[in-house]
């Protein structure tokens, strides 16, 4: 029997050893249990930073954050004696109430979940006092965007929950499902500045998900950093005036300060109240706006593309002067057998041709630019000439996106030789095939903001800053670097004088004299009438003022409104007046615009 005691002791030791070996495997060798333990208890709790606000150039708030209240519920603690009273208080019906409680219960019995989302401040005020009578309901304050002026909707953009593609595009993996992100407009373009930096607090939770303290004494926690405030270049009174003038019309107004490239107003009509896309009703309202046939979500100043029309003749003139193929005194007969014309003129010099918008004149001018006989082969010569011409045009910021600080800016189109090679499928082409671009028709396409920028270039006599909407980011007090760089055209400054004089002449005694002329301010402008068969023409006008010390450059597009000299010229001059002297001295012009009957 003596061996048996040893055997029994051996069994004890054996079991102890097996335990220690097994424990060595799970405690020392296997890392999975440590990760699983961390997964069990660690919950990152995001602290959302305050999103930066946006001011106009005079310090008025355009966009700020406003509190809304999520009413949270902890199903376990709910004690409601009078469900009906609570439903009335929260403005929901009883079935809604039951359903919401059930949803919360499905999520968790002991953790809070959202019962009622984004209750606005005014509704919350009356709920707040009484809600304390109901156990299990708590309040979490959040913020949404608020727009005190209902202006500038398309330039500002909006906020919405990030979608799947947004998450896929986010290579830095900053965003998480359910995060809000700026869409379109300044909100999108300056998202990285506005959003600030999220803070994360790592909390420990127990098996029910209730927070029990900081994880690792908070050594991994980060504080949230508030977003940077932006100061916009927008002049709010001017913007609102522009929006008022454009009421009931389709089109756009772009006003730029020529010396800086700062956008003073950016009107897209029709528009919408940006507040409708903030808060609870987002989905409903977004659907309504998307389905609207007038396309209020379409940001016309940057996205609508039109043929430039006769405004283009000013560019043609300056390029021809730069190329030395004409002088200001060059006279060309108005030969209407080549191309149609209008008005009563026969043999104008350059300035006269611009004032009268003489088509045959510019037909001839562009031929001189394009066919300079540098190559004996006329086809090759045309190609070389066209590409040289396009380079000049491109230096005016046409045919490519300007780089405005808004997303989705369109390029417009200025054709080059490759474009026509493709269009003609490599069959030979020469000037006679492409001459309609000479008068701003044909393939050319421009965007309203490019035309406003062009007016600014003429005002500056040859240079521009890329138009931009934000002049100061955070503490920097400066716009982005690219908006601080002066850009020159390929045309020498002296050649601009002809253009300036011609534009002055248009307002003084030409097509602009009736509705664009101001008493004490010398306005330089050019009408454009963009054909839009079978509908009425689009009314276009570009202008800057004062002539010798330009403070504002404008482009106005009014769709389906006929001659440029009517709707667009009136609106442009009213904008200039408003900006320079603060009010209009021509109420009849304002009435004319507001009445909106331009076709007669």
């Amino acid at each position: 029997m003596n061996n048996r005691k040893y055997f029994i002791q051996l069994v004890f030791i054996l079991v102890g050893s097996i335990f220690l070996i097994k424990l060595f495997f799970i405690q020392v060798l296997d890392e999975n249990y440590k990760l699983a333990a961390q997964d069990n208890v660690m919950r990152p709790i995001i602290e959302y930073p305050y999103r930066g606000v946006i001011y106009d150039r005079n310090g008025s708030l355009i966009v700020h954050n406003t509190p809304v209240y999520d009413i949270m519920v902890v199903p376990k603690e709910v004690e409601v004696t009078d469900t009906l009273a609570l439903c009335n208080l929260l403005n929901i019906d009883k079935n809604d109430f039951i359903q919401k409680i059930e949803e919360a219960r499905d999520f968790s019995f002991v953790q809070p979940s959202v019962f009622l989302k984004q209750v606005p401040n005014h509704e919350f005020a009356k709920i707040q006092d009484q809600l304390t009578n109901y156990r299990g309901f708590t309040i979490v304050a959040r913020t949404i965007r608020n727009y005190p002026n209902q202006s500038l909707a398309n330039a500002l953009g909006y906020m919405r929950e990030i979608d799947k593609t947004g998450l896929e595009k986010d290579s830095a993996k900053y965003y998480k499902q359910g995060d809000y992100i700026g869409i379109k407009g300044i909100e999108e373009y300056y998202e990285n500045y506005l959003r600030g930096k999220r803070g994360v607090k790592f909390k420990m939770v127990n098996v029910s998900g209730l927070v029990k303290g900081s994880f690792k004494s908070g050594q991994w926690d980060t504080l949230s950093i508030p977003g940077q405030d932006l100061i916009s270049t927008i002049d709010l009174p001017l913007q609102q005036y522009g929006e008022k003038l454009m009421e009931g019309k389709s089109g756009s107004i772009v006003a730029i300060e020529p010396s800086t490239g700062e956008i003073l107003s950016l009107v897209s009509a029709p528009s919408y109240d940006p507040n409708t896309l903030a808060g609870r009703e987002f989905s409903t309202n977004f659907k309504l706006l998307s389905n609207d046939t007038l396309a209020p979500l379409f940001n016309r100043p940057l996205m609508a593309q039109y043929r430039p029309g006769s405004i283009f003749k000013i560019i043609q003139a300056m390029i021809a002067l730069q190329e030395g193929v004409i002088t200001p005194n060059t006279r060309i007969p108005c030969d209407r057998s080549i191309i149609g014309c209008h008005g009563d003129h026969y043999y104008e010099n350059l300035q006269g041709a611009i004032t009268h918008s003489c088509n045959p004149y510019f037909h001839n001018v562009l031929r001189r630019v394009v066919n300079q006989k540098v190559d004996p082969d006329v086809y090759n010569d045309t190609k070389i000439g066209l590409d040289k011409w396009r380079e000049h045009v491109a230096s005016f910021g046409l045919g490519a996106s300007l780089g405005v600080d808004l997303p989705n800016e369109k390029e417009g189109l200025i054709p080059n030789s490759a474009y026509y090679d493709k269009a003609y499928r490599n069959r030979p082409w020469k000037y006679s095939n492409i001459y309609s671009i000479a008068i701003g028709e044909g393939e050319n396409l421009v965007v309203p903001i490019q035309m406003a920028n062009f007016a600014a270039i003429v005002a500056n006599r040859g240079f521009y800053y890329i138009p931009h909407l934000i002049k100061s980011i955070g503490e920097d007090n400066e716009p982005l670097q690219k908006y601080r760089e002066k850009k020159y055209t390929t045309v020498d400054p002296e050649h601009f004088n002809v253009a300036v004089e011609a534009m002055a002449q248009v307002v003084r005694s030409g097509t602009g004299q009736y509705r664009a002329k101001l008493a004490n301010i010398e306005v330089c402008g050019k009408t454009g009438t963009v054909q839009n068969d079978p509908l009425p023409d689009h009314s276009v006008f570009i202008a800057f003022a004062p002539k010798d010390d330009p403070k504002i450059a404008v482009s106005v597009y009014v769709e389906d409104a006929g001659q440029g000299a009517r709707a667009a010229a009136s609106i442009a001059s009213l904008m200039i007046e408003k900006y320079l002297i603060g009010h209009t001295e021509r109420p009849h012009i304002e009435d004319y615009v507001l009445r909106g009957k331009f076709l007669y």
Partner: protein
Amino acid sequence: MRKDLLTYNQIDWVTVLLYFLLVLMGWLNIFAAVYDAEQNQSIFDITLNSGRQLILIGASVLIIIVIMVIDFNFFSSIAYFVYGILILMLVGVLFTEPVAGASSWFKIGAFKLQPSEFMKVGASLALAKYFNDYNPRFTKIRSVLVLFLIIGLPVALILAQPDTGTALIYASFIIVFYREGLSPVVIGLGLSMIALFILTLLIGWLTLVIITGVIIGIIVLSILFLSGKKKVRRILITLSVGILIVGVAFSVDTIITDVLKPHQQKRIQVLFNPNSDPLGAGWNVTQSKIAIGSGGAFGKGFLQGTQTKFDFVPEQSTDFIFCTLGEERGWLGSLVLITLFVAFLLRIIFIAERQKSKFARVYGYSVASILFLHFMVNIGMTIGLFPVIGIPLPFFSYGGSSLWAFTILLFILLKLDAHRMQILKR
């Protein structure tokens, strides 16, 4: 010279020291298991398990003193009486209001008593007394029947509560019987049946029957062709073993579906495949292993554990108390505890073996065996080597009945040991 007076040298201080070490470690771990950092609690707070355990430990010291002053012959003389009283209590407890589905507790005010814990002492005493007085032989039907009755009666009553875990502990007496002469063949047969049972569970009875059939066939054939002597007898033995095996294999299905309750079936299943039900029956084992595994080599530090404190592990201060130690003290802590426990068990065997009376020796082996089975099943379940069986870790787990029962169990042995020289060997 008065020999019945207890002197300092007679007490086995090694065991006493190990006992208090385990109790102290247990107490600290109970505190760690219930500690909530947010509330700045004290280990002495009697609203916590740790504070209450301290009171229970104090009471244990009183019990120890009482045991030490009682005459050592008293335990032998009242063995059957104690057994009888406890059996009556086990009968009586069946008529109490069930708590968590089992009628295991006598409630007197806030005080709860679990007679099944104390029954271990009674059974051990009765068994020791019977061995001492009647010198039973395992070949005699009468002896086997009496031994079966002494153990079978409390097991039946505890199963009726029902409390399968506590009943299972009575299997530990097999070790005592083995020490006292039970043939290892019987034990081997018993263990094989368990192995067979588990194997059937894992691979299905039909496969097993076919495999055993083939093996038996081969053995029978080889015996037929190779040897001549006692051929018939060998074939008969082989065949009866084969029939037994097939019988067990067949019975598994019945036992699994009819005898074991659904939660017990699942506990056995998750033992072999913890992922089969990770949120249900597998939850306890998975979370228990996560808690222990996350401790690493040196642990997270006292009160720094998260898994047990935040209730991921169930029954943290009672049945799963080992998780707290594993998490906060790491493998080093496990090493210390297991070494202490094994040393403790070996010491008890050592003490048992030096007894002159059969009563004291059998009793000593009973103590060692009961503690061993608790140790093996309790730690084994927390690390996934045993199915989840709700029994405490002796001296360690929170709970008055179990702490007192184990204390009484141990110190009766130490009292007997202290007076071993006064026994005249028969």
